């Protein structure tokens, strides 16, 4: 057949459809209709053939009927008037002795989605509810839901709703489930279908008759039911128990979801339910369908938040397969990190080491950062692997290793010795900006121990004109300043050149501002500079937070068996491949910004406050804090922060510690309002100040002894600056 443009094609088809010879030949007619539907599904606009197709609808051939209906349902909304012609045929079909024809007509009548046809549809639908054949009743029940959506304004007859409720006792399980679905939609405003005790027990008893899909639906609706007594609750639980072990992952997941919602007040029962599903979940992890594997992995991660030991013995199940897609491999590595313990650490690291040379660079980088995270607990073994990888001189591997090492050193300062040794020679291999930023940060902070540091920086400074990334330039400024403090003789000349270039020739405002700031800082004298730049090199307290305690199940139960856990993973992998977790992005910069408030007037300082220095000593124990907190009167203050910082508690804690504010406790993330308790002392007058920050809208409750308004203001402005910095960084 020669190629025809869409207009020619439509004309050709119309001619064929209206040709009486074709119409009389049953097979040729059907084939022509097939061509029309094929054109439609390929995206050709064949709506012009609507009236011809309406005629084709009146036939005894069921296959032809079905084809025509596919066409009509797609184009009915464009031709509401012509569609009226179909309704007669459809209504006639609803009287057909063959139940299949009846259900077909009824389904398509409601699929036309035309509000003008509603009056013609109601009567056949009412009749359909009482049809002898189950397949017609199934269609009719859902038909009412469709009708409700078409004219949501007018209420559906209460008699229909009653009839639907009574059809819950229909002998056909699909009709029963469809009734639930339809009622759920029709009664949406009233909170969905009402589940009272008799209905709940009826549904539970008939669960076995339903197929997989029906069971999932029923289990989901039952989540709304609250048993009236403890005995009833346990009866339901033991009835559902076998479903937890169902070989069908959807049923298993829906059952667990129901278990968690029923047992929300019984943590022990929910935990034992999690133990029960371990087998089926692991089986799903080995499913032939890789999408199913991925889903199971994501949900296992949820479970581990409450039961970290759940999969401990089965860590080998999370070793990556040779041909698995990258998204599964990355997920498995995240799981392996959480499953590491003294016995398996050697095997897990050996396995992860194998992935570091993966052809897929994302997988390789994820493996390297996974080793880094294990390094927080087993630093020696991990550093050995990481430094070994540097020997490969591969660009992406070296870059990932440097970034990982930077993050590791921030948490475990005891590693710095080995890291300094390994850094030599990396600068030639690291090419991307993230990697170079990490390298510069390390050279700045540990410059006195890396003998070649000034020469490396000099190479960077010489190549400054061709440097495009402002991030690298800013990091270079900070690193050179820091190195200048410890090795002034070697660095003075290049620092001068760097500052000159950045102030005179640089076009990026941020870089220029930072250079200007450092320039002025140097004017304030070396002690002042030291105070600003040589703040903290590490934050061991972060290490403690990483071995996080088990969360209560209720934290995540709501997102179990939804798309949420699967999507989260995408965001997480992005952030790991993006490269820069806490230290560099959030810490050195708040460091410089915040210390401004303790400097005398500087151009960037907008918050004019009396210089206020805070200190952490004497340290308060949690018990002491609690005692003081309960003792004192609170003052409520609001800190204006455009968007409350959506950062991890760890980075908030790190940032606050830089300004000598100690966080003592905070509520788990994602709870609203999110709360954090902090304390600090002011140095000159020795008052104790405590604050509890409430989010959102950042409300601060302050308790101070003795009362000192200026100190209070100073504290609030510092707090505001920290929050500002963090939220602007997130944005």
């Amino acid at each position, binding site marked *: 057949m020669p190629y025809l443009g869409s207009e020619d094609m439509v004309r050709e088809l119309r001619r064929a459809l209206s040709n009486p010879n074709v119409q009389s030949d049953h097979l040729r007619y059907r084939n022509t209709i097939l061509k029309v*539907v*094929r054109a439609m*599904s390929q*995206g050709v606009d064949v709506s012009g053939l609507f009236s011809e197709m309406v005629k084709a609808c009146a036939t005894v051939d*069921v*296959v032809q009927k*079905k084809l025509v209906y596919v066409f009509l349902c797609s184009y009915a909304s464009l031709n509401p008037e012509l569609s009226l012609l179909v309704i007669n045929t459809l209504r006639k079909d609803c009287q057909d002795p063959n139940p*299949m024809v009846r259900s077909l007509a009824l*389904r398509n009548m409601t699929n036309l989605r035309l509000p003008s046809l509603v009056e013609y549809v109601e009567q056949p639908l009412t009749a359909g509810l009482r049809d002898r054949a189950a397949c017609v009743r*199934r269609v009719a029940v*859902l038909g009412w839901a*469709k009708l409700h959506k078409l004219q949501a304004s007018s209420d559906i007859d209460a008699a229909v709703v009653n009839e639907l409720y009574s059809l819950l006792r229909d002998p056909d399980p*699909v009709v029963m*489930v469809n009734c639930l*679905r339809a009622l759920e939609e029709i009664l949406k405003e009233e909170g969905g279908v009402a589940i009272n005790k008799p209905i709940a027990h009826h549904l539970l008893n008939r669960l076995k008759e339903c*197929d997989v*899909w029906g069971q*999932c*639906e029923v289990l989901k609706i039952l989540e709304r039911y609250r048993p009236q007594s403890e005995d009833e609750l346990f009866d339901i639980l033991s009835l559902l128990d076998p479903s937890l*072990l*169902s*070989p069908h*992952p959807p049923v298993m*997941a*829906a059952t667990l979801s129901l278990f968690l919602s029923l047992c929300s007040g019984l943590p022990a029962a929910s935990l034992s339910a999690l133990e029960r599903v371990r087998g089926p979940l692991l*089986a*799903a992890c*080995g*499913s*032939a*369908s890789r*999408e*199913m594997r991925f*889903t199971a992995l994501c949900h296992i991660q949820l479970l581990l938040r409450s039961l970290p030991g759940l999969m401990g013995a089965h860590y*080998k199940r999370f*070793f990556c*397969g*040779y*041909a*698995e*897609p*990258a*998204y599964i491999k990355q997920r498995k590595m995240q799981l392996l990190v959480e499953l590491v313990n003294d016995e398996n650490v050697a*095997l897990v690291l050996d396995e992860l080491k*194998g992935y570091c*040379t993966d*052809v*897929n660079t*994302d997988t390789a980088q994820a493996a390297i950062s996974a080793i880094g995270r294990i390094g927080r607990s087993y630093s020696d073994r991990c550093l050995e692997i990481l430094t070994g990888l540097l*020997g*490969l*001189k591969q660009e992406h591997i070296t870059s990932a290793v440097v970034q990982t090492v930077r993050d590791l050193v921030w948490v475990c300062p005891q590693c710095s010795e080995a890291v300094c040794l390994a850094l030599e020679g990396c600068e030639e291999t690291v090419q991307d900006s993230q990697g170079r930023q990490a390298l510069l940060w390390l050279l700045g902070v540990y410059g006195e121990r890396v003998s070649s540091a000034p020469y490396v920086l000099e190479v960077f400074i010489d190549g400054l004109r061709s440097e495009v990334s402002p991030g690298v330039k800013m990091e270079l400024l900070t690193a050179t300043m820091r190195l200048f403090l410890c090795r002034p003789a070697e660095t003075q000349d290049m620092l001068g050149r760097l500052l000159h270039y950045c102030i005179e020739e640089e076009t990026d405002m941020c870089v220029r501002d930072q250079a200007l700031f450092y320039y002025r800082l140097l004017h304030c004298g070396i002690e002042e500079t030291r105070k600003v730049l040589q703040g903290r090199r590490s934050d061991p307290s972060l290490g403690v937070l990483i071995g996080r305690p088990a969360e209560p199940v209720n934290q995540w139960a709501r997102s179990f*068996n*939804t*798309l*949420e856990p*699967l*999507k989260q*993973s*995408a965001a997480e992998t992005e952030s790991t491949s993006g490269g820069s977790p806490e230290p560099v992005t959030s810490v050195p910069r708040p460091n410089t910004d915040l210390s401004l408030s303790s400097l005398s007037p500087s151009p960037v300082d907008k918050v004019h406050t009396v210089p206020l220095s805070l200190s952490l000593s004497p340290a308060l124990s949690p018990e002491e804090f609690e005692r003081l907190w309960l003792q004192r009167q609170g003052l409520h203050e609001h800190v204006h922060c455009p968007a409350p910082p959506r950062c991890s508690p760890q980075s908030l804690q790190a940032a606050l510690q830089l300004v000598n504010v100690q966080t003592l406790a905070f509520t788990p993330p994602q709870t609203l309002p999110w709360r954090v308790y902090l304390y600090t002392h002011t140095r000159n007058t020795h008052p104790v100040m405590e604050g509890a920050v409430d989010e959102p809208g950042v409300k601060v409750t302050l308790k101070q002894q003795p009362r000192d308004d200026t100190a209070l203001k100073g504290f609030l402005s510092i707090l505001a600056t920290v929050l500002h910095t963090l939220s602007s960084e997130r944005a």
Partner: protein
Amino acid sequence: MISQIFILSSKGDHLIYKDFRGEAGSDAVTVFYEKVTALPGDQPPVVMSHGDLHFVHVRQGGLYCVATTAADSSPFTVIEFLNRLMALIKDYCGSLSEKSVRMNFALIYELLDEVVDYGYIQTTSSDVLKNFIQTEAVSSKPFSLFDLSNVGLFGAETQQSKVAPSSAATRPILSSRGEQGGKSEIFVDVIERLCVVIGSNGVVMKADVEGEIRVKCYMPSCSEMRIGLNEEFSIGKSQLRGYGAAVRVDECSFHQAVRLDEFDSHRILRVCPSQGEQTVMQYQLSDDLPSAPPFRLFPTVERDVGGRLLLYLKLRCDLPPKRSVLLQDATTTHTPLCQELSSPDQSAELQPHSRAVVWQIPRFPGGTQLSALFKLEVPGLSSASMLEVGPVGLSFELPKVTATGLQIRFLRLSPVQPGASQRWVRYVTHSDSYTIRI
């Protein structure tokens, strides 16, 4: 609740599009494909979202099968359903490919119409569906003389017809509608997937088996079937039966239609198979294979005087003799290659984009040993780059072998079918992931 379902070819052609609820526009298809192509690599995440639209997709046979849905719907259900839908399409059209979907689009629309109504899954049982589906499948395979090769001279039993033709299991289940002469056949396949990691010192670090018994039934009406497994089959660690080497699995689950009255005493499964394919039993075994893993590799990696990387691989197949396998393996390394293989029917090539040498071995008899020598030019070869070589991944298919030792003792249909019915039992072990460290 599913709002739309569409099937796209790998090039983004719209093959099937059905909107169940009229909530999202038909531009969703374009949005989805743009999202897929915008991502690097060809492995888009399973769930993607665009505003209120959430796409969940599975990829099979080079096709994207996508459902759009609300954020709170169960991913387990949607993915299981999409997989089931693809299996149904395969059952009805014979095979799953772009071509077969194009040719059978009318059938697939009909199928979708019966399977999902208003976004709610109605039924996916082929027993129920066969009453509703009227369109006949168009088989995408052209008539071929080879199909006749199984017919013996004057209808005599030939040697060939004792072996199930490999094409038999890829025909549409309903193609014999109307013509009574259609073969009534039943296939029972024991399929196992091996997942093995062998360390560089030859120690098996991990060995998992995922197995299933799959029944594919072409009988128009089949009554009860009894499948007898090994008598000494045991589940879990504690339970041991018989005296000989027990066939053991860790966990085992059955299709809900399987009746297990005789399972405890005689290890017999009773099923009434419905037409089409279904998985009757699934089982797993980890870390405790009854026999040694089928392949052993003895690798040597060296640097020769000319600065080339020498990779000498000796591969041994530890299966009993007279079993042959199809095999291909790959190692990660670098550029140009010169090779010496032990036999002319093997081939090897270097795939630059994945930096792998692929060595293909069409037949590998049990108890034998093959070797290959690869010389690779590696720019800037250092002693450290030796670390980058490997691991070796093997993909293979072992016919007539099960790694767990599970066997089917007998297969009985009761009552005995009138006319000729054929029963086939097939065993196959695939490599899910068979990795050997160097």
